[in-house]
């Protein structure tokens, strides 16, 4: 029997860090705040690492029931944590990448007011994310789910004095809430049908009833999908993620690239037993994922803010993960989650390094020629760009290719179409990433002399300090070798990650015959498409820099459509937000609140006053009037006594 792993410590240490920094951080010197934050993140990472080292000696699944929470009638839910292969991978990503980003932030945020606040919120986020990942039941997962939304709101609105940042924070929170409603409804349905929210019990019940197909399981799955689209920024609830770039860059790296937005994918993978029983839900996931991937990639083609491009790229890559889950290749989705965490975090952090070097400039049209001036940033970002574009032997190639292959061989009739759209999107991804690469690092320097007010250093373009560069280097190494745990057999590997996850996610699909050669062929096609994207980017942004403007003026309508993000935000605003605001302001506030409630209160007040003033006249101080009333009362009592309840009085 395994001795206790004390899983409850893993989320609790960052929470302690949050409390210390949050309550006392204002008075601490910066070094102490940093130390507290680092320790609060390092300890969980070391604990997870030690669990990973002893992993093979554990009996799985391992659950730890810390305390009972709700016991109401037949339903009960506990504070319980569980560990299996899927959890372990997520834990490694969250604690590992989280720790690296903490180190980076110590350098990036060094000149900020509210330094202590930043690290407090970051630790709070770690606490909630770890709770989400370690949870043994839907209810505790929901606690983490909501909590990361809260931390995201706090961190997006970190520069709260800036109007756009505050609005972006609100937008993120509200849109997430809509998804959370879906999650809640799914939980209610789960309680109704299964009587419990514990993963183990629900999945074993589903397993024991192979006749349960579709029906209520589809309903549960669809509501869970709604929740996932909110958290993982898919259509229709992706609109918050581009605006979330208002937050500091480390926040974008940690929350909006590596961890929080992957919670939706994790949840689908965790609950795959339910989704497997509903082909309709799986198709929905696949279609949403693919459509979002293509949609976001097209928008990313023309954006000028470096962080916006990366934001849309995140939405697009999350679409790939959804596609993987949609064709029931859950381990491929998780594999892409892992590699994406590495190269997307690296992309954001190095973009932050570029922004820092240019003292706050984020517009790519004002960049250029930075290759020689900030070499380490350049080389790490290059590694990330190659990884995301899907070039072997970098990480992104293996994971993305696995997804496309699984889509191609999927028994789902849409499989080939999804593969084609995914392939197209891969080409677009390669194009806009290399576009970013060329615009930022190559060509003549277009940077202006005036400094942005975010990072006013005022001493020219300079490389970032080592505390920021070290995480970049580590992540770059991971972006190169991170994919090597999933090399498929067709290419000479052993697909370790798929085998590792198979106890949790089910065996990976293999094509019937001619599997290996098909896979090789598809891999070659993917690489060709990526190269095509690079070629066009090279043509338009390095060889002939006047070409983009010419093309844009020729397809002006399409260009504007993409530049304005298909006007989706405006559409939502007009169709949903404005009517709600009007109803709230005029009907609910004007009619009900002011009219009915306040009016009712006032009416009662006036009535009481009126009645009071009437009754007041009786107490006039005049003895004779008192006597008059007394006489009347006496007569009434006499009447009552004799005729009322005194009629049985007998006169002897």
């Amino acid at each position, binding site marked *: 029997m395994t001795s206790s792993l004390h899983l409850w410590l893993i989320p609790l240490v960052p929470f302690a860090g949050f409390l210390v920094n949050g309550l006392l951080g204002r008075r601490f010197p910066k070094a102490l705040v940093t130390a507290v934050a680092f320790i609060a993140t390092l300890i969980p990472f070391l604990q997870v690492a030690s669990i990973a080292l002893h992993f093979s000696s554990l009996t799985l699944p391992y659950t730890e029931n810390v305390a009972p929470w709700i016991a109401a009638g037949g339903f009960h839910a506990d504070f319980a944590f569980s560990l299996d292969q899927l959890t372990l991978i997520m834990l490694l990503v969250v604690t590992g990448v989280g720790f690296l980003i903490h180190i980076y932030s110590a350098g990036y945020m060094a000149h900020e007011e509210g330094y202590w606040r930043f690290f407090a919120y970051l630790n709070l986020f770690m606490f909630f994310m770890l709770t989400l990942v370690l949870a043994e039941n839907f209810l505790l997962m929901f606690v983490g789910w909501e909590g990361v939304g809260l931390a995201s709101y706090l961190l997006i609105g970190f520069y709260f004095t800036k109007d756009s940042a505050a609005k972006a924070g609100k937008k993120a929170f509200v849109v997430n809430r809509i998804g959370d409603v879906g999650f809640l409804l799914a939980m209610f349905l789960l309680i109704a049908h299964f009587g419990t929210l514990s993963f183990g019990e629900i999945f074993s019940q589903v397993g024991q009833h192979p006749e349960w197909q579709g029906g209520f399981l589809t309903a549960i799955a669809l509501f869970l999908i709604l929740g996932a689209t909110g958290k993982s920024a898919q259509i229709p609830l992706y609109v918050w993620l581009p605006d979330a770039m208002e937050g500091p860059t480390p926040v974008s790296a940690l929350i909006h690239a590596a961890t929080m937005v992957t919670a939706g994918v994790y949840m689908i993978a965790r609950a795959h037993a339910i989704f497997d029983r509903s082909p309709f839900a799986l198709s929905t996931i696949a279609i949403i994922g693919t459509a979002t991937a293509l949609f976001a990639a097209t928008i990313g083609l023309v954006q000028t803010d470096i962080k916006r491009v990366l934001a849309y790229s995140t939405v697009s890559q999350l679409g790939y993960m959804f596609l993987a889950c949609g064709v029931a290749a859950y381990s491929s989705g998780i594999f892409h989650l892992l590699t994406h965490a590495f190269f997307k975090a690296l992309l954001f952090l190095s973009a932050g390094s570029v922004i820092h070097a240019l003292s706050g400039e984020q517009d790519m049209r004002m960049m250029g020629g930075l290759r020689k001036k900030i070499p380490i940033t350049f080389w790490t970002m290059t590694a990330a760009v190659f990884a995301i574009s899907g070039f072997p032997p970098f990480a992104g190639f293996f994971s993305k290719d696995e997804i496309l292959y699984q889509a191609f061989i999927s028994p789902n009739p849409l499989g080939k179409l999804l593969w084609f759209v995914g392939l197209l999107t891969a080409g677009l991804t390669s194009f806009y990433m290399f576009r970013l690469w060329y615009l930022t690092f190559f060509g003549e320097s277009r940077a202006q002399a005036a400094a942005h007010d975010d990072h006013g250093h005022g001493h020219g373009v300079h490389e970032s300090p080592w505390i920021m560069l070290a995480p970049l280097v580590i992540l770059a190494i991971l972006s190169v070798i991170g994919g090597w745990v999933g090399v498929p057999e067709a290419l000479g590997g052993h697909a370790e990650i798929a085998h590792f996850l198979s106890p949790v996610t089910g065996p990976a699909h293999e094509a019937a015959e001619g599997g290996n050669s098909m896979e090789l062929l598809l891999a070659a096609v993917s690489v060709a498409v990526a190269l095509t994207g690079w070629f066009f980017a090279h043509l338009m942004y390095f060889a002939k820099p006047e070409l983009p403007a010419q093309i844009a003026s020729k397809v002006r309508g399409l260009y504007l459509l993409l530049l304005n993000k298909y006007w989706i935000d405006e559409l939502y605003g007009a169709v949903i937000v404005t009517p709600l605001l009007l109803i709230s302001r005029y009907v609910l506030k004007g009619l009900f609140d002011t009219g009915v409630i306040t009016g009712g209160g006032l009416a009662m007040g006036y009535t009481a006053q009126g009645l009071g003033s009437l009754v007041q006249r009786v107490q*006039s101080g005049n003895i004779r*009037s008192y*006597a*008059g*009333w007394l*006489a009347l009362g006496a*007569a009434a009592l006499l009447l009552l006594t004799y005729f009322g309840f005194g009629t049985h009085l007998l*006169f002897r």
Partner: protein
Amino acid sequence: MHLVLFFIFGGLCVAGALNLLLQRHPINSALSLIVVMTSLAVLYLLLGAEFLAAAQVIVYSGAIMVLFTFVIMLLNAGKEDRTHGSKAAYIVGFPGAAAVLGILAYIFLKQSDQLGSAKLGGYLVTTSDLSRVLFRDLLLPFEVTSVLILIAILGAVALARKEH
């Protein structure tokens, strides 16, 4: 005989009461009240309460009413002006008083058969009977009453004293 006496002295009572109501000067009202009380003493005698009749004359008309007269003379109360001070007293009070009278009269007359009648000498309570009950069964209330009178004396003296 009994009936005649009853009507004479009953009539005197009512006449005295009405006179109290109608007179303007308080001293006249006080004297009418003395008439009422003395007539009542006779009625007590008719009902066989000889001690009470004596007490009525001595205490009520002999002490209390004299006290009233003293105060009227002390304060030099003059004639009353007939003005209307309170509407409620007339509007509500008169019907109320009339109703009280009406209801009571109705009840008593309705039940007059069951009430029996009074005969002269039918039930005579001697002073010894009264005092037997008073000093044996009701000794405690009797003593308490004397304390009450003491307090009343003290209160009256304290209240009516001239402030120096």
